[in-house]
């Protein structure tokens, strides 16, 4: 049943323009950054190089890739629940013998599968260097895993926002608002004492940073997992509450 719901979502996404536009835009921007990094790195002498090529690519290419994914997740998710509420197609799912949890999980799987090409694009770009440069593939794998974890978090927030309203535009803005809050909340730490690290811990980019450095820490994995689960639980609650009008 989960596969049926996810399959329909993916099919609908592939036959309409938004997903292709997002994928193309992501590749164009990443290709430009990729060339910039390669060109800058190759023009420097050995003594001017502060970091390895892998480090440069991970921090710039993977670091930037997270931002378009953060915008893409709400755009893709708004069709999955919010637009279905608006168009009345959610009635098809809700009147079928399927639980709200199954519906939500099916949509979440579909969203992750649609986002996956976006966070795999940096890896695809880097594979072009496979024969021409020595790269630390362990660090690249960690960065890819980090982007995947961030995508889980973005997807959960986006689906939650989508479950709250039957106006897709409002769903996108709500999701972006939450995600931007989680992006800039780390800056609040600078306003307080350095010892108070709660705000820094709440910011997703602080956790992604460690993945980009090639360090997979359990605490970072738990951060993304816990918040993804938290927003999915809220989304589930929201779907259940729809039955009460």
């Amino acid at each position, binding site marked *: 049943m989960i596969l049926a719901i996810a399959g329909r979502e993916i099919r*609908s996404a592939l036959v309409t323009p938004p997903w292709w536009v997002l994928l193309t835009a992501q590749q164009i921007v990443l290709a430009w950054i990729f060339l910039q990094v390669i060109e800058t790195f190759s023009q420097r002498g050995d003594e001017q190089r502060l970091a390895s090529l892998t480090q440069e690519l991970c921090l710039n290419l993977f670091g930037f890739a997270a931002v378009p994914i953060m915008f893409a997740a709400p755009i893709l998710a708004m069709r999955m629940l919010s637009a279905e509420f608006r*168009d*009345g197609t959610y*009635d*098809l799912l809700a*009147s079928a*013998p399927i639980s709200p949890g199954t519906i939500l999980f099916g949509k979440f799987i579909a969203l992750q599968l649609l986002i996956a090409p976006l966070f795999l694009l940096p890896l695809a770009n880097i594979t072009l260097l496979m024969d021409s440069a020595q790269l630390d593939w362990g660090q690249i794998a960690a960065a890819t895993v980090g982007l995947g974890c961030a995508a889980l978090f973005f997807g959960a927030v986006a689906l939650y926002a989508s479950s709250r309203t039957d106006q897709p535009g409002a769903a996108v803005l709500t999701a972006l608002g939450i995600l931007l809050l989680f992006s800039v909340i780390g800056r609040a730490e600078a306003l307080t004492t350095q010892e108070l690290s709660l705000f820094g811990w709440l910011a997703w980019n602080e956790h992604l940073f460690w993945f980009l450095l090639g360090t997979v820490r359990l605490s970072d994995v738990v951060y993304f997992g816990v918040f993804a689960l938290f927003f999915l639980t809220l989304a589930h609650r929201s779907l259940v509450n729809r*039955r009460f*009008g």
Partner: protein
Amino acid sequence: METLVRVIDLNYHLGGQPVLQGINLELKRSQIVGLLGPNGSGKTTCLRLLSGLLTPSSGHIEIAGIDLGRYPLAAQRHLGYLPDRPPLYPELRVDEYLAHCARLRRIPRRAIPQAIVAAKGRCGLSDHGRRLISQLSKGYRQRLGLAQAIIHRPPVLLLDEPTEGLDPIQIRALRALIRELAQESSIILSSHLLPEVQAICDRVLILYQGQVRLDVDLSAAPPHHAWFIHLGNQITVMELSALAPVISVLALGPNRFQVDLAPGAHSGDLARAILAAGLDLLELTPARSDLERTFFDLVGVEEHR
């Protein structure tokens, strides 16, 4: 006869305001029950409650003997639901959409192609399997909405204003289809059109302001005994009363009368008697039934208060 839907003292409140109050309903096998009422009377809410899309504030709903509140998924297996807007994905083709609906309804994978062919055949969509839903006309979209509701051959069908927005030819075709579906499923349909309900349903519940105001079994209703006639000649009430099947006459205007017939007599007897008396019969129409009177009293009079 087996009862497939049983609703007991159903109440639904929204924001503290009552939307439905004290609804009681029974649907027997192969019966078509019409929920009739003006816009805003609670018909759609009632069907959404029966389909499990909404949870009642109080009351009890049983589908095929299963408590919908306690076992919603088990009860929903016996339901087919066509909302007021057919739940269609315009970017899919007809066959893709029906295959998706079949999977949602838990039809075994091997039986899906057969179920799609059968549903399309019954709804007149056999030649449209490859068409994009966005390219279908409104009538065909409605048919496709109906096809998704019957694809798993449910014993209970809930149809929310199924002929809304269709042209007269499409309405006639859809009514015939609904009557045909009733051979296999019991149907509850909502409408704000009295003639539609009279044409399709065996039983009618008139809903007004969230309450059932009249529950009439049309199949058991007595035949019309009151008729309006318009004659082409001058005739007095006394002369008209003297005709054999007539027991009382009420003059309504020049050459226009309401005639009550004797028990057992029908419109054919009246027409023959009028022609035998050498009169020209220009018009013969049934007078309003109890159902019509109640409906128009509620919709017409009460709304103007």
